[in-house]
């Protein structure tokens, strides 16, 4: 069943046009990867879906409802949760307060139980409950950002480069976490520079080039696509890619 459908989406910043008619769809329970070069518009696409940016045209249907005009706090209420690029945790709040902020839209009694669950899922956070989040390491901050997003019980999780700037071992850990989240039935839209890992994990993937979807297919198809290999996996496979696979 389709949970998100984006159609002919145009968006940008004032005069600057970034997205030129993007279309994609996400089915419940799958991980969909989005890869693309720096500046292709990946972050812009996520921000438009989550309502931080108002599009200039196009449609965004979430569970069948048009959410194009909704501001970010309303899309969160509907069940879309974005983990922003660069681990946007609240640095001056404790780990526990960050998790509570994750449940900001919830009024039910299950919040405390969910906090316990997240802390069990991420033991590093459990040990640091009362620590200011700004003092966490990069990997711990990313775990917190993901854990906090889960606190909203999202029906669609948007992740913007969760592996950015992290050591290979931590990246492995994050991808393992994401795999676990899918097994629990979460739906994830994953933006990544780390194309190989993202496509290995994803059920399906899209390639975004200068604001347009250039290619789509199953994760495996994209991994085997000569164009994708040349542009997004090529160099990596010969040099850094080898090192990364060995390390992980």
């Amino acid at each position, binding site marked *: 069943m389709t949970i998100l459908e984006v159609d002919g989406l145009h968006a940008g910043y004032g005069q600057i046009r970034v997205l030129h008619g993007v279309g994609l769809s996400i089915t419940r329970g799958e991980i969909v990867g989005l890869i693309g070069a720096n500046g292709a518009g990946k972050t812009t696409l996520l921000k438009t879906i*989550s*309502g*931080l940016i108002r599009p200039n045209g196009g449609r965004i249907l979430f569970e069948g409802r048009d959410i194009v005009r909704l*501001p*970010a*706090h309303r899309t*969160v*209420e509907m069940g879309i*949760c*974005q983990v*922003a690029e660069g681990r*946007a*945790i*609240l*640095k*001056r*709040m404790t780990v526990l*307060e960050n998790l*509570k*902020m*994750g449940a*900001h*839209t919830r009024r039910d009694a299950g919040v405390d139980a969910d906090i316990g669950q997240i802390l069990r899922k991420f033991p590093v956070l459990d040990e640091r409950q009362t620590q200011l989040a700004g003092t966490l390491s990069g990997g711990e901050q990313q775990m917190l950002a993901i854990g*906090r997003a889960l606190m*909203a019980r999202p029906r669609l999780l948007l992740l913007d480069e969760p592996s950015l700037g992290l050591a290979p071992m931590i990246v492995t850990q994050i991808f393992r976490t994401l795999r676990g989240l899918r097994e629990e039935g979460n739906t994830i839209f994953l933006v990544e520079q780390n194309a190989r890992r993202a496509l290995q994990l994803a059920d399906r993937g899209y390639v975004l080039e200068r604001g347009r979807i250039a290619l789509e297919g199953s994760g495996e198809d994209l991994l085997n696509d000569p164009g994708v290999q040349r542009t997004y996996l090529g160099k990596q496979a010969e040099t850094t890619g080898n090192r990364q696979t060995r390390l992980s």
Partner: protein
Amino acid sequence: MLGQQLINGLMLGASYSLVAIGYTLIFGVLRLLHFAHGEVFMVGAFIGLHVVLWFAFANIYVAIAGAMVVTALLGWIVARFAVQPVDKGYPLAPLISTIGVTIVLQNLAINIFGGEQVAFPETIEQILYRIGPLTISSVQIFILAVALLSMAALWLFIDRTRMGRAIRATSESHETAALLGVDVNRVVVVTFVVASALAGIAGVLDGVKNSAITPHMGLEVAVKALVVMLLGGLGNVPGAMVAGILLGMVEILTASYLGTSVRDFFTFVILILLLLYRPTGLFGTRTIESG
């Protein structure tokens, strides 16, 4: 009489803190210096006065409550009609807009209440208590108690409540807060309302303390509270609480040992030294955080 001076300083400082907390809260969520905040304080004083004058049943508590309601409403109006409509990519526009509010409020007050100093009636029976060498009046105790209680209530609000957390999140990042489901515009309005109500309380307390108020009383307090905000660290609420009391003490001590005429001079010396050597404030942070 150092002990006596410290009590006086605490009293003076506590009202600086109340006003400075408002500046700090608003600066936290919008990076905006709310220029008219001192005028909100002044409006609070006049509302308190007139509640006492108009209503036979009114005591000082009713006066404070009335002032809080009206200044809270004023905060809402300023946020919705003077700040948010112009808060669209021109960083100076909201500042200039609040300068406009200052002019409007002052002239309104002069037109309605007259430009002269007005006596604030005695609302609390003067009783002097002697504790060893110290003398404390019932008025002083009242002012101090109200100021400290208000600060404690504010701290609990910021530290413990859902809305308080949302205010702290918003002052870290509008975008992050929005992605967590916080209605940032609403948080900004609530922040203005809370900050303004605190200034309203401070205004009434000032009337009680000085037994007289004028439409121009906002300026001096605004400047002092600004120094306090800088002392405490931009956006740092507990910092503003402590720094306000510190400045009050310093002022009373300089006034009593060096004379009243150098008091304000000294305040600005502190400000200049601070800007030169500790631009992030005494406590070196830029935060709204719990204790």
